């Protein structure tokens, strides 16, 4: 009798263990794309473009994409501007139709489908006048280190992606009074606290202009305050989105002084 009970207990324990493993595996795959840090879907829904199709589309063509929100820039009068990315590339979704209620649901990682028009504004490729549909899925893209691509023709292939820069040096900017400073409020120093921050960085070969976009990460955010604390000569690692305005104009979302 005792032997039978032990066997039953062992069987029960084994069954429970296996069931737990199965449930854990199913729960991990239940949300397609996986939890934050998991893999994005590579299969696209019906009528949805691959990133390659999107890239090949002409400006002013209608486009349909699926991607995962990586950052929200702004909401105003039922229009939202968002950074999104899929497994193969990134999208800047400009002034898509979006209620304030839906905007709140556009958390980082949320999978969305966007139908809009491909547009190009001063070199920045974007999806304009889009509509957004929520889909099941969640993925946060890792930042791609593009430090070595600065100043090269290859950098533009990563436009709008979440990117990282390592070991850059803060170079001086000149304020309206001719003084050398580590950053400016607005591109010309005409602004004040709360406005965009512009600062120069060097990779030892050339100097580039980087931005903290105040709508994306404004006053009070860690990166905004960190940039205000920078000094000329600091060596920094950064992450951000590779925005484009007549050339690379990264919108930085984090700064670490080494």
């Amino acid at each position: 009798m005792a032997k039978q009970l032990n066997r039953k207990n062992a069987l029960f324990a084994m069954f429970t263990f296996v069931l737990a493993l199965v449930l854990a595996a199913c729960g991990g795959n239940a949300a397609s794309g996986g939890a934050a840090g998991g893999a994005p879907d590579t299969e696209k829904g019906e009528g949805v473009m691959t990133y390659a199709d999107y890239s090949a589309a002409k400006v002013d063509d209608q486009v349909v994409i699926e991607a995962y929100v990586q950052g929200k820039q702004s909401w105003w009068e039922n229009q939202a501007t968002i950074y999104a990315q899929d497994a193969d590339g990134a999208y800047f979704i400009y002034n898509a139709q979006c209620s304030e209620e839906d905007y709140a649901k556009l958390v980082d990682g949320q999978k969305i489908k966007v139908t809009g028009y491909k547009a190009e504004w001063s070199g920045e490729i974007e999806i304009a006048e889009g509509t957004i549909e929520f889909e099941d899925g969640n993925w946060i893209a890792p930042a791609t280190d593009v430090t070595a691509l600065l100043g090269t023709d290859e950098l533009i292939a990563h436009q709008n992606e979440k990117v990282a820069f390592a070991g850059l040096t803060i170079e001086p900017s000149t304020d309206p009074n001719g003084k050398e400073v580590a950053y400016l409020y607005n591109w010309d120093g005409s602004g004040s606290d709360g406005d965009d921050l512009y600062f120069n960085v060097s990779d030892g070969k050339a100097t580039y202009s980087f931005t903290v976009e105040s709508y994306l990460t404004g006053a009070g955010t860690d990166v905004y305050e960190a940039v205000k604390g920078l000094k000329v000569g600091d060596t920094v690692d950064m992450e951000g989105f590779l925005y484009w305005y007549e050339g690379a104009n990264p919108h930085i979302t984090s700064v670490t002084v080494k």
Partner: protein
Amino acid sequence: MIQMLKQRGAGYSTDEGEIQIFNDDTKDILYTVAEHAKTGAFSTFKISGYPANFLNAGQCIFAIDSSAGATWMGSDAPLVDISEDKLVQFETAVRMVPQYDVEHPQMISQGPSICVFNKADSQEVLASWLFAQYLLTNDVQVAYAETEGYAPVTTKAQQSDEYQDYLSRAGEDNDVHYPVKIEATRILMDNAENTFVTPVFNGSTSLRDASGQLIENVAKSVRRKETVDEAYLENLFSDVLALYHLDQLGGGGVGGADKEALGPLPTASKALIGVLGVAWVGIIAVAISDELKKRKS
């Protein structure tokens, strides 16, 4: 759009806010926009970017912007957003905005504005008014005009020795005395009597935005291979009318029913006007006193 309608003697709005923009002249203008957008010869800031960036890269033969935008235009412009390797060398000519009738030019006059709002704290209003007066001083007007390319808003500043000297030094450098910028300002000042402003009434900003939106929509539609015809324009008029609530403005405006709705001037406002009057009397008195002392010595 507003300029073209004015040049054609076509309706835009009355001073009281009656909306007149949805007319056959507007349609005619939009057909012209469609024609040139279709060939890629025409685009707008909202669609493509700053006109100067395309001009300076040799991608268009002329660009239209404000007198302040002139600071960015030309091969030697002091302010440039495109990379140096994209700059094309060319000689820049400055002209007034295109005209339907060159003998009777009409140019819109607009730019940054200042409003002094009524507040519960009359001291705030007084401080705002004093600040506005400071902004109107020659020092501020001339300095602002020299860096930004706008004309000073007072004839006193325009005629000041400092500003006249600045104008006379066009071409001395490609910075403060950038010739394209100064030439644009000269054209404006030489044609002050040919400029116009649009009336201000409740909803005038919406109408202004709507007039631009008509051009934006037509240009985008053409680029997206849509057909711009009578049916399209009728729908566009209807959509823009609704989008900007232009059918709800009621033709009120500054001089109309709104004034009755506001009622008599509040006591605080009357007191503030009195204080402002006393302040001016004081300013004039001090000025006279200083002048008298100067003559005595």
